């Protein structure tokens, strides 16, 4: 059924779809979605007739119901209209609402930050008007043209405004999370991040070590590229540099363009008075002999090692604590994982990683690309040495999938919220007799699914059963990104995964190394893997 020119945001529609599935036991599938190409493709994969679906355009809504009888369909059709008339309201009655941005700004004249999570095509006009009104912004939205981003950031920087994003999934201001974020303590660390789940991983792991973060400013993944030139990254560095409460500044990013990296290092060396940790994932380590600034800068290769580096900068006592909370020695790791690889059948040769976090996908590609034989790794968002998947919905050999990419998310909630596609993929991968390891991330915190582990638990159990019924063992390696104060329950999430037979690792980097160790049946240079991705550069590592 098509509702022409009818809009509700993807999250409201996900909730309506969930409610609709529960209207009658006769309903086996119900999807209410905006008719984006992504959603149309997914409905067709779910078996709905392409002839109706293809008539819908982007601004239309599609209602797809599969039921065993006409009564259930009639009931669903009536109910969906009611649900759409009264979309779910935010909050529980005490909320402040406004009909539009103008009304909201009139209601709160001292507004100092606007958080935008709307379709990317509408961002430029709104952001432009907010800049004219001197209002700082965090732009969660993706799919904003890079030319628009450059224009907005140039205008914003000229007025001393923060334009965090587009594509900034998270930020932390005075220890409080904006966007996807975790319940952390505030403290002496400042972070500039061009990597959303990277910022969540680092802030969460630091929190687990008892180290707080005052500000964590997400600038969006494009910022350190040449086209943007690091405009906001450099602005944010200046702000953190001038904050007396901040002792260590960490920069978390995929490797910036050489020109931007040069500016970052130049700033840190020549105008910086703080200690700096540069975590350019896969960008290489810097040992102390290369450091020419009294050990004030430490460059590391992974998110996990950046946590050790920050701890080291704060003192050896902090490093000891960080090692005890976020690190597992190689011999201990091998002992645990030997029980996994010894159960694999010889035909099980491949890893399938189904990620909700974009930075986690990137980091896993860096690590697995380095540790696994060349030419056999595919991704829908490949980095340099990784092959492009022909079809993002179909894995090949080793596949590392970013479920947050456009083909999965345009017109749908982010996979950290909506687990529909990952559930389907877990079962699909389990059916493949060549798959030996499933690698999964679970991101807790504000904005995320209220129970990301519980939401896919049935599929995890079914995946294990599918393999077992076929005479195989499927190893599932997971990482939970979160803190003990996150509402989803960090310890409980790990405990449930362990009970379902999953191996849970303390960091994404360690989960990726573990996957490589299992699929290689222990034939991995573990000392080298640790040196590159899980420890500080050797001569910094002594406590």
């Amino acid at each position: 059924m098509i509702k022409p020119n009818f809009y509700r945001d993807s999250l409201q529609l996900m909730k309506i779809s969930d409610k609709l599935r529960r209207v009658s036991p006769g309903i086996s599938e119900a999807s209410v979605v905006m008719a984006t190409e992504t959603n149309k493709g997914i409905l067709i994969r779910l078996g709905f007739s392409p002839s109706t679906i293809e008539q819908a355009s982007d601004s239309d809504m599609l209602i797809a119901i599969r039921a065993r009888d006409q009564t259930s369909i009639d009931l669903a059709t009536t109910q969906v209209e009611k649900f759409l008339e009264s979309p779910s309201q935010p909050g529980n009655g005490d909320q402040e609402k406004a009909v539009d941005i103008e009304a909201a700004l009139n209601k709160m004249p001292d507004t100092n930050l606007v958080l935008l999570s709307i379709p990317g095509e509408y961002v430029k006009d709104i952001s432009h008007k907010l800049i004219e009104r001197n209002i700082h912004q965090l732009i969660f939205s993706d799919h904003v043209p890079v030319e628009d981003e450059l224009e907005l950031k140039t205008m914003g920087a000229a007025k001393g405004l923060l334009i965090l994003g587009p594509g900034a999934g998270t930020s932390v201001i005075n220890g409080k999370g904006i966007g996807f974020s975790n319940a952390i303590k505030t403290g002496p660390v400042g972070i500039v991040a061009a990597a959303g789940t990277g910022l969540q991983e680092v802030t969460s792991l630091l929190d687990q070590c008892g180290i707080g973060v005052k500000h964590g400013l997400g600038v969006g993944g494009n910022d350190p590229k040449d086209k943007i030139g690091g405009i906001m990254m450099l602005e944010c560095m200046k702000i953190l540099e001038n904050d007396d409460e901040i002792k260590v500044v960490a920069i978390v990013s995929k490797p910036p363009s050489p020109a931007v990296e040069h500016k970052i290092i130049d700033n840190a060396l020549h105008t910086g008075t703080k200690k700096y940790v540069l975590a350019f994932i896969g960008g290489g380590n810097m040992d102390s002999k290369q450091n020419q600034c009294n050990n004030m800068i430490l460059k590391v290769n992974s998110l996990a090692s950046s946590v050790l580096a920050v701890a080291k900068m704060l003192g050896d006592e902090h490093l000891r604590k960080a090692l005890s909370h976020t690190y597992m020695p190689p011999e201990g790791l091998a002992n645990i994982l030997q029980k996994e690889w010894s159960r694999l059948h010889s035909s099980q040769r491949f890893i399938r990683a189904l990620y909700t976090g974009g930075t986690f996908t990137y980091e896993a590609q860096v690590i697995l690309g380095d540790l696994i034989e060349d030419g056999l790794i595919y991704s829908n968002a490949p980095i340099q040495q990784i092959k492009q998947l022909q079809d993002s919905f179909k894995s090949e050999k080793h596949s590392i999938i970013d479920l947050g990419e456009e083909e999965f998310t345009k017109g749908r909630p982010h996979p950290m919220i909506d687990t529909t596609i990952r559930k389907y993929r877990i079962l699909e991968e389990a059916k493949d007799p060549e798959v030996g390891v499933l690698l999964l991330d679970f991101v807790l915190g504000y904005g995320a699914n209220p129970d990301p582990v519980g939401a896919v638990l049935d599929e995890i159990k079914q995946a294990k059963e599918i393999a077992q019924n076929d005479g195989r063992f499927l190893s599932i390696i997971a990482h939970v990104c979160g803190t003990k104060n996150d509402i989803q329950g960090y310890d409980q999430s790990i405990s449930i995964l362990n009970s379902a037979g999953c191996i849970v690792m303390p960091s994404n980097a360690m989960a990726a190394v573990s996957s490589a160790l299992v699929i290689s049946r222990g034939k991995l240079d573990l000392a080298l893997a640790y040196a590159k991705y899980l420890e500080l550069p050797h001569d910094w590592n002594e406590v």
Partner: protein
Amino acid sequence: MREKTTDAATMLRSELNVVNVGLDIFYNALKLQNINVIHVNWNPPPKLEKETQDLLDKIL
């Protein structure tokens, strides 16, 4: 119309007053942390209106 510029460092030192435009999960998350927030239940302008607006923008 606001005229005063509050620079980023000042904003980061101040109490946050946020307008959340779009997904209500972020409104709820900010409320949970006791941050002042107003939610705007945003809808895109109708397609024809945007096209007409673009046309008007060009003419004017």
